[in-house]
């Protein structure tokens, strides 16, 4: 088979070469699997860490919002919050790691060619460990509280997928931006911290909608995770269906995603010169 490659300085494309990405799928698996192995290779209590972190976050949030503030929710507050933290923890983990991924693998970027997009994308997989553990905790709590899943549960995977895309889109943006502008490395922990409060994790989204003028609510839902978490929780426990604002989140995610891979594609040719 004749294999031809043309490198043309004047050639620029808007979107990445998806065929090539597919050809490198084995690299995606290997990188994801490497992160998997490495993450728990050195720690002595291994997987226990993955359980401890979400459980502690969950307990603190539930203590502050459920007990101290007294947020009223349709299902027990602990269960309500675990649905939020499960997907939020995944989101913040993937966003942080794929955001710093290019700089973290600069040795590779400088020495070998492969579609750079594989690096941030591969970070989406490791987060599933924590997510899976949170889901198990949630199921245990559902049994404990005797809460039956709603009839919309079949939609839950859609919202999870939507969460994955949201995490990756922001991660891709950050990974490309932080190559050019190292400042962005400092932005990420800040975003995670703020996000914990401006996302309806430990309180229902209606709280925010009722308190704010409608244009601020729209702004609130430009945060993709606002829609993801509200929708995910609705698909599990039922209640009032998310309104039009959900589409604001979906729309925001799609735009961030498309522009993200396009920006990334634009920068990737010169990444080796900057890292």
């Amino acid at each position: 088979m004749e294999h031809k490659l043309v490198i043309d300085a004047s050639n620029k494309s808007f979107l990445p070469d998806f065929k090539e990405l597919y050809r490198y799928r084995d690299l995606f698996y290997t990188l994801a699997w490497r992160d998997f192995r490495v993450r728990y290779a050195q720690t002595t209590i291994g997987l226990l860490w993955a359980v401890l972190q979400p459980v502690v976050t969950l307990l603190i949030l539930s203590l502050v919002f459920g007990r101290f503030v007294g947020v009223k929710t349709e299902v027990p507050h602990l269960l309500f919050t675990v649905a939020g933290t499960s997907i939020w923890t995944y989101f913040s983990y993937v966003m942080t790691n794929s955001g710093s991924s290019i700089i973290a693998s600069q040795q590779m970027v400088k020495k070998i060619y492969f579609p750079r997009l594989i690096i941030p994308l591969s970070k989406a997989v490791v987060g599933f460990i924590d997510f899976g553990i949170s889901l198990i905790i949630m199921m245990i709590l559902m049994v404990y509280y005797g809460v039956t899943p709603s009839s919309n549960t079949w939609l839950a995977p859609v919202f999870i997928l939507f969460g994955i895309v949201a995490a990756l889109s922001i991660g891709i943006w950050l990974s490309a931006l932080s190559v050019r502008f190292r400042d962005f490395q400092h932005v990420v922990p800040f975003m995670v911290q703020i996000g914990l409060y401006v996302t309806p994790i430990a309180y229902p989204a209606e709280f925010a909608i009722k308190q704010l003028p409608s244009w601020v609510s729209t702004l609130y839902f430009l945060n993709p995770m606002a829609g993801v978490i509200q929708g995910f929780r609705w698909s599990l426990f039922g209640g009032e269906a998310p309104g039009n604002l959900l589409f604001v989140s979906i729309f925001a995610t799609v735009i961030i995603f498309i522009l993200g891979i396009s920006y990334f594609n634009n920068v990737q040719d010169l990444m080796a010169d900057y890292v």
Partner: protein
Amino acid sequence: MSNDVAIRIKNLGKKYNIGKEKDDNFRATLVNLFKKSSTKDEEFWALKNVSFEVKKGDVIGIIGKNGAGKSTLLKILSQITKPTKGYVEINGRVASLLEVGTGFHSELTGRENIYLNGTILGMTRHEVKSKFDEIVDFSGVGKFIDTPVKQYSSGMHVRLAFAVAAHLEPEILLIDEVLAVGDVGFQKKCLGKMDEVSKSGRTILFVSHNMGAVASLCNRAILLHKGNLLNHGETTKIISQYFNSGQASYYFENDENDFSEKMHSVLTCAYVCSTNHEKKGKFYVNEDFKVCVEYEIIEEVDAPIVVSLRFFNEQGECVFLCLANEVQPKAKGKYIAECKIPKNFLNDGLLSVSVASATYYETNYVKNYFYKDVLMVEIIDVLHDNPMRYSYGGPFPGFIRPNLDFKVRSINSIK
């Protein structure tokens, strides 16, 4: 006609902006957006208007001094970076080895790293699997294959890494001095593998300072100088042009001004001279000469900053390495380090000298600079009136030609 061309390069150029203030800060970019006449970055063309063709099955050596653009060319061909100008057409599957062991992770075992590194280099997991035994065999790592590589010796590490790379099966292979690693035995093995690859009819582009390796492996060579293509053609012709073109001479002045922050000392100039300080590049074997390095200490540290010299022969083999001795100055200021090379020590031939400096802390050292092959010195044989030769007029083998204490005395004298 175009069927036998593996690589076609047309007017290739690569520009780097080397501004005083790097634009990798967000504010500067924002400011520049609104300011039309932004402070002009200094432009630097690492490659200028390079055009050539490589035929299928050719083994091309790319040679030139430091900063000639060799690595940039290889980086563009391997798609690591994009050219600023020009066009490249490559017919065939490319694999590049700019470094061995890219992506190796010290926590993972040898086995896991083979898969990891293999896929990073562009193999599928299936391909790695089918060559796995061969790779392990070639590396000689043997029973340590399931041990984390952090417990490997550096030699084992390199061998395993090269073994993976050696089992890529591309039609076009781009190599950047990976052979400069490992022990001599392993280097021979690597060169053998490359030779085998080239004999199987594949195209190889090989960047190296090792003229011996270039001469023995490559059928053609390309000479680059400051981003320009000086010449290309038959290997021996190009190599002798490299040695004789005066590209490297007995005097080297450092005109770089891009110093990284880590440096404690910078090179001003270096030269070869006679014992009475006449700068020149040719000496007889029975003549003393000096190699002088002028440098400036720009940051005071509480550790010796030591200049070192490496001498290489025409085959690219290191003849010796020498570190400046006695007390090393630490205070800021300009210094000159002089190394006297005694007469009747080096063999005749052309030698290239690399100049380096490092700061030696108690347990580790930090490189200040390393200039490869910046000086050239020719040692000329003395054929007549040479008591060491008697009537022998042929070449003297060996790296050195010392005049040793080698005397004859009688052990059974007859009274």
